[in-house]
């Protein structure tokens, strides 16, 4: 465990900093992070609504998450924790979103399909960080020092609204993809797949197969 490399990045992250991130590196962040997921993508990309704030120079980190937050009587927010949501569902929006916002770090749960790193993120100079666990809501909640802004709260609800968080020592995250499009998840998956055949050895197949069932254990479920 002591062998894992750890870095702390100031945001917005520079191209040089991003280039140093290798799969498996542990990362902590300082600066501003914003949330956007299907509700926001739908509005901005599909419905062509303008972004509610200029992200350029402010934040280039898109967190796929939603907070456990409630509004206090004075209008301020109480953010208990934040936990990422599975990112592969947002694959179809990534190209447009990165182009539109200049986002260079995507954070979420579980990574994106391997091809997305090669074809979309890496060519744009962007990398993917995964949350740890994934249930580290309390640790990440601690790292949020302030809710800087929130947009579309009434329309999209707490989970889907676009939140801007000021963060300090926010993490840990683990680097999944680098600028070459390598993926930690995919590399580990490949290694685990090699052992799967042996696990099933000697177990006879069920009498009735299910429609659409495959026996290829290397198929990505994403």
């Amino acid at each position, binding site marked *: 465990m002591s062998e894992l490399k750890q870095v702390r990045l100031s945001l917005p992250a520079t191209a040089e900093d991003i280039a140093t991130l290798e799969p498996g590196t542990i990362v902590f962040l300082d600066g501003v992070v914003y949330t956007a997921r299907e509700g926001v993508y739908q509005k901005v990309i599909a419905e062509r609504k303008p972004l509610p704030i200029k992200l350029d120079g402010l934040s280039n980190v898109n967190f796929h998450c939603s907070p*456990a937050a409630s509004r206090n009587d004075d209008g301020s927010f109480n953010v208990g924790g934040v*936990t990422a949501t599975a990112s592969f569902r947002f694959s179809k929006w990534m190209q447009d979103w990165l182009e539109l916002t200049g986002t260079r770090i995507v954070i979420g749960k579980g990574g994106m399909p391997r091809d997305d790193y090669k074809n979309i993120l890496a060519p744009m100079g962007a990398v993917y960080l995964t949350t740890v666990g994934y249930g580290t809501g309390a640790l990440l909640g601690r790292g949020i020092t302030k809710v800087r802004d929130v947009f579309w709260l009434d329309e999209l609800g707490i989970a889907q609204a676009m939140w801007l968080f000021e963060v300090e020592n926010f993490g840990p995250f683990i680097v999944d993809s680098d600028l070459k499009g390598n993926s930690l998840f995919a590399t580990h998956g490949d290694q685990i797949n090699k052992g799967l055949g042996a696990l099933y050895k000697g177990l006879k197949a069920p009498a009735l197969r299910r429609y659409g069932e495959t026996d290829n254990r290397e198929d990505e479920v994403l």
Partner: protein
Amino acid sequence: MIAIDRFDEAAFAIMQQAAIDIPEDYRLGIRSMVDGETQDLSSFVLKTMLDNWEAASGDRRPMCADTGLPRYYIKVGNDASIEGGFVALERALRHATARATQEVPLRPNRVHPLWRTDSNNNVGINAPEVEWSFEPNVDWVDVTTVHKGGLFGTDYRMLFPGDGIDGIKRFYLDTLVAFGKRGLCCQPAIIGVGLGGSKDTCMQLGKQAACLRTVGDRNPDSKIADLELELKDMANNIGMGPMGFVGSSMAVDCHIEVGYTHTGGMPISVHTFCLSSRRATARVHADGKIEYRTDPRWFTPYMRRDTVDWSAS
């Protein structure tokens, strides 16, 4: 007669406790897995989870921001009586859910499946679920809440008697590998297996096995207990750890519950109770005293009875 405000208090307190404090049996289970995990990344994840639970308890904030689907399991003593009856109790549970959502806070997770309308309080049609059971010869009421992660880690299949234990093992592996990849089910998990019953009972038993039994608990049928341990080891030999990294930590424990089923079938369900295995129980006594714990003690001998009659012993 138990005053209804005792339930307001108990139902809120367990929602808060479940969201913030990881049950000790689960925490110790994960802590012992850290020692057995030889892979750097997998052991880093487990240690980070231990830190996370400390932060949650220390700061009194939810351990995971994903509330999952908060719900209740109620066990009513046959001699208990509740002020206002069961309707009043269900109302108290809905109130406690809305209050906990605002005050803990819990992320509002419950929306209409089609219109996606969100009342921002985790209350809606059939939400929170309330499941009822009974216990002979006692006058208390046990109120348990479970906040189980919602999206991944559960599957069901109709197997047939001829598929045998092999069929069970294959389906079990299928489910764990599918949902374990990239850690979608947030393993290491308490794995619940439901065997038999009708389809809905099969799902219900598997879920209750995962969520309502503690780490280390064994089924009273010794052959089923052996199968639990065998399946637990099998999970930890997949070669997968937390987040789908190479490792050996998939199952903290495995629990099996059975129900008599159709003579031609052997339905199976598999459920995973995740790294935020949130459960808490309150026993509300007839005199209004409330006792809190993390072991739901749901599967009593009465629940598992196979006889026509139940004789109080």
